[in-house]
């Protein structure tokens, strides 16, 4: 990491450390009940053991599998449907009412009915995640493809590019900044729905563990898993930002 970037992060990190210290002090001074909020140092010990013993890996990979599979499937469907709706008017007229019906619905509410059909296994969880991912990607792809400059399309036509290849080599790259913005929104949703479906089904993964520890009154463990979940979110965002910057490396740097 470059020194300037580190310098910019410094105040925020220092503030975070200060808060943790204050919490530690408040718990030790008896201002907060230890049973509800153990001191950060105690949570840290549990966290360290979870990581060092490798116990963290199973639940972590279970949740990440849901997130990645659902994200990939939902993104592909969202891009395909969004591009079709933008490109081909009959597809738009056919799908628009359906999309507008489902889009505003919090996708978390669809987990219970999906459980009826798909049970409580990974199929149901991945379907739920994919469903949540699809809509932001779809709507952004629709907008992005619609906004592609006419001049660019005509340039492809005058150079003899057929429609299908122009769609792949001109339209989708031109719409990519929009598509990626939708995918960034969806990535956050993917994690939410993955954790929620784990809680509702009571099976495996980080979401289930957080709920299970709370019910078993293993409070330190609960907080430790919560910290792990926060780090997962952070890492996913960083990974996506990195991939996005690479995919859009050609964009002119605006001063």
């Amino acid at each position: 990491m470059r020194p300037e970037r580190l310098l910019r992060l410094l105040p925020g990190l220092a503030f975070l450390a200060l808060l943790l210290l204050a919490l530690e002090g408040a718990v030790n001074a008896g201002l907060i009940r230890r049973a509800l909020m153990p001191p950060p140092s105690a949570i840290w010990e549990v966290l360290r053991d979870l990581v060092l013993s490798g116990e963290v890996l199973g639940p972590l990979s279970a949740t990440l599998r849901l997130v990645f599979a659902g994200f990939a499937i939902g993104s592909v469907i969202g891009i395909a449907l969004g591009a079709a709706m933008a490109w081909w008017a009959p597809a738009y007229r056919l799908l628009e009412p359906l999309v507008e019906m489902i889009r505003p619905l919090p996708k978390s509410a669809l987990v219970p009915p999906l459980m009826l059909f798909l049970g409580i296994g990974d199929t149901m969880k991945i379907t739920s995640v994919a469903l949540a991912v699809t809509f932001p990607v779809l709507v952004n792809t629709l907008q992005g493809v619609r906004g592609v400059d006419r001049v660019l399309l005509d340039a492809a036509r005058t150079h003899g590019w057929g429609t299908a290849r122009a769609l792949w080599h001109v339209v989708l790259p031109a719409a990519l900044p929009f598509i990626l913005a939708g995918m960034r929104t969806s990535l956050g949703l993917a994690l939410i729905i993955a954790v929620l479906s784990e809680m509702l089904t009571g099976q495996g993964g980080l979401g289930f563990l957080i709920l299970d520890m709370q019910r078993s009154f293993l409070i330190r463990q609960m907080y430790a898993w919560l910290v792990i979940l926060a780090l997962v979110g952070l890492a996913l965002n960083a990974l996506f930002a990195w991939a996005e910057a690479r995919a859009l490396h050609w964009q002119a740097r605006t001063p």
Partner: protein
Amino acid sequence: MAILELEAVEKSFPARGGPAMLAMDRISLAVREGEFLSILGPSGCGKSTLLQIAAGLMPPSAGTVRVAGRPVTGPPPEAVYVFQQYGRSLLPWRTVRDNVAFAVEHRPGISKARARELADVQLAAVALTGFGDHFPWQLSGGMQQRVALARALAAEPKIMLLDEPFSAVDALTRLDLHRLMLELWEKRGLTVVLVTHDVEEAVALSDRVALLTKRPSTIARLVETGLPRPRDAVEVRETPRFLELRHELLDALLTRHAPGDGHAA
């Protein structure tokens, strides 16, 4: 022999809450193989529309367009259109080299590597050797226009349709591009149709100049320049014939442009 023919071509655009707006009224024009023809007219008279119809990018409301004897229903392989908005016509995510390769890489039997080789040849022809790895936004307007020209050349067209390609660059760059365009036209035996509102540009480069009226546009005059070939785009401006034509066309353009004269033409 005519390689590009327009026959009674009309174009009207739907207008909001009224009758359709007639932009172009029965234009007929035969472009000879190998000639350099300019279409001259005031802004908004329908020059871009006419050229896009000729390029098969826009259907006419009536009339027919033929390229090499065949009726045009879509962009014909013989012709390439170079956009007035050249900056917007380049793919911003591609390097300059890959933008030029875009003209040929989709053709059967041409590998990506071969397309890039061909692109480098055309970049050399427009004096952009060494800029292949740049992105379009890193280049000046004049250089971007040369990328667009290189891309069109890479397609090895018989006909180049140029829509005000030199109007958005400074005067010196424009003269530079004029020379380049004449050189390319002479070397490659192209047929060029150039749309412009610049009288001097039209006269200096062309064999013939078609003067358009205001909307709805028709061809007011078709002038044979009779200027010598090969010619230098700068030196030709000092010949008496050039000055005579410039005077004549400017005069026609200004009177036709005058307020209230819209129907007299």
